[in-house]
């Protein structure tokens, strides 16, 4: 009996060990039932900035304005885009020799310009208004578009309807009008008289330039955003335009 007990205990221990080890491969009890199968609500598309337009117009269209230059014995129109609530960018030649400047927004509001200033370094003018231009303003890119980039031009060709056209940047070139101090960009975007001052937008909706001319080959020319940024960073380069008619 003295030898049987240890043997029995050893056997029992082996059985117990096997049983305990076997518990490792036994199925565990189910985890508690989930209480909520419905995931949390994601952000509504309407909450995203710029995801939806309140009236069907894109941000680029809503910041674009039509510029009417009421001169002495002439009337000219051009395009522009809002930099902020009371400031817009257009071409110098659009507001030259103006007796009065009126700005029309995309939704038909007419805003009177209070002042205009321009530079001789590029065909750029800055116009200020007393009334608000709207709620959407230009997001200026920090770099010029590269050759081959697709760009969109939003403006009022021929002084008509608000129009959006696209093209490809052909690259850097010299100013065909020989008026700009720095290089300009050429593109394939189709423009017409009245498109002058139109904003040029990249795929992200940032402004990358300002339309100012075209040639007979239907190529459009763009003041690059780097030039505009330099001018805006150095206000002394912008000289106020004198109003009134030359005798």
């Amino acid at each position, binding site marked *: 009996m003295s030898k049987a007990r240890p*043997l029995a205990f050893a056997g029992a221990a082996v059985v117990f060990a096997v049983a305990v080890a076997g518990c490792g491969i036994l199925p565990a*009890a189910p985890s508690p039932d989930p209480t909520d199968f419905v995931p949390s609500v994601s952000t509504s598309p309407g909450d995203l900035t710029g995801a939806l337009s309140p009236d069907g117009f894109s941000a680029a269209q809503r910041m674009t304005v039509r510029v*009417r230059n009421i001169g002495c014995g002439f009337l000219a129109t051009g395009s522009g885009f809002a930099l902020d609530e009371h400031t817009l960018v257009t071409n110098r030649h659009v507001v030259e020799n103006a007796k009065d400047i009126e700005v029309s927004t995309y939704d038909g509001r007419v805003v009177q310009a209070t002042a205009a200033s321009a530079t001789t370094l590029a065909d750029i003018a800055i116009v200020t208004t007393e009334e608000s231009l709207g709620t959407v303003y230009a997001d200026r890119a920090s770099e010029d578009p590269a050759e081959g980039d697709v760009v969109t031009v939003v403006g009022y060709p021929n002084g008509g309807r608000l129009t959006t056209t696209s093209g490809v940047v052909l690259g850097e070139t010299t100013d065909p009008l020989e008026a700009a101090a720095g290089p300009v960009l050429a593109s394939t975007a189709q423009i017409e008289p009245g498109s002058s001052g139109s904003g040029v937008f990249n795929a992200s909706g940032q402004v990358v330039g300002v339309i100012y001319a075209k040639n007979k080959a239907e190529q459009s020319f763009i003041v690059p955003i780097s030039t505009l940024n330099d001018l805006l960073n150095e206000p002394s380069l912008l000289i106020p335009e004198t109003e009134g008619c030359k005798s």
Partner: protein
Amino acid sequence: MTDESQPDPVVAEGPKPDAVVAEEAQPDAMAAEGPKPDAVVADEAQPDAMAADEAQPEAVVAEEPKPARASGKKGLVVALVLVSTLALALGALSAYLWTVHSQYVAQNEALRAEAGDLGADVAESRAKAEELQTQVDETLAQLDEAKETINGLANSEAQAGDDRQALIDVADGLQECADLRQDMIDHLNEAYKWTASSLRAREADITTYCKKVTRAYKEIVDD
């Protein structure tokens, strides 16, 4: 064999007759161990040990039958313990598996019910989403239409503004034309003060200007 107390091997391997004598004196040992001259010599050198071995032969013989009976009992005990332990383990395992099985079955039923409810909700939500998508499509179409209308109205407003401004310019031009013609009439009334050529040149300038204004007016009206 290397012990100094033991006889020298050379001496031990002496004449075999001695060994024969020694073997004869211990026939049992001889039968058990066979002829080993050295051992025989050693046995002779330790007679007390031999005597001690011979003093307990009975005890060894008396215990021989007992292990057979004890091992049977031991095996039975071991088997009983093992079977009992195994039975207990199997019982516990069965109880555990039954409990877990029951829990899974209950949870499965609950999840199926929940899945059914959620499926119904999903179906209802999909139907609503399709309905809403249709409404969104219709709204977007209306929005596009409204956008075109707004664009058209804004354009009409801009064109009207342009026309209004042009008409104002023409009106100013016509007024200017009338003023110039009145001025010409005044000059003609005092024609003696001016040379004929200067009067004709003045009249030509005024006529050119007035024609230009009239042409601009007609362009506006024609548009």
